[in-house]
């Protein structure tokens, strides 16, 4: 997704190393994706479903 759009940055976060982020975003299972630090996507999703949710999560 980051390659497709200059607007997208993608951080892969190793959860066990960053307990502060795990607490902040209430990560109780992986994978869990935070979109713009607000929208949660839990688990692995089909690609287009994931992209649709992530793009829809953009807060203008």
């Amino acid at each position, binding site marked *: *997704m980051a*390659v497709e759009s200059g*607007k997208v940055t993608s*951080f*892969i*976060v*190793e959860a066990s190393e960053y307990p502060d982020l795990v607490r902040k975003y209430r990560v109780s299972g992986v994978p869990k994706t935070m979109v713009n630090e607000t929208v949660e996507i839990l688990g692995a999703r089909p690609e287009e479903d994931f*992209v649709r949710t992530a793009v829809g*999560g*953009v807060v203008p």
Partner: protein
Amino acid sequence: MPILSPSDADRVRAMLADLPNPVRLVFFTQTLNCETCEPTKQILGELAELSSQITVQEHNLLLEGDLAASFGIDRVPSIAVVGAQDYGIRFLGIPSGYEFMSLLDAIQVASAGDSGLTEASRAMLAGLESPLSLQVFVTPT
């Protein structure tokens, strides 16, 4: 002692044999209070030996904070995976276990400059007008 076994190294070398363009791994580290920085450095060093297209640039987060900030990085160990351009791909934490495979994927994608996504996904992303930040939480096993 290498982290990658000889057979793993062979497999990784084969996976990276067709990288079309150079990839820089911009690695931010620090010497104190970072248990995973040294093993991360070792993994990246072993990786760079397996492909002439991969280079590692090591930076100290504390001494080069402005550079880190320009990559949106404020933690160690962190890696920016940069191809022909910086596509915005970052790894926070040691890329071991399953995350090592994710790093290899990211290197291949950044090198090719091609996401491999479907046309429908690409169309949705092409319409983005505001910044979109993804934080994908994972564990190494």
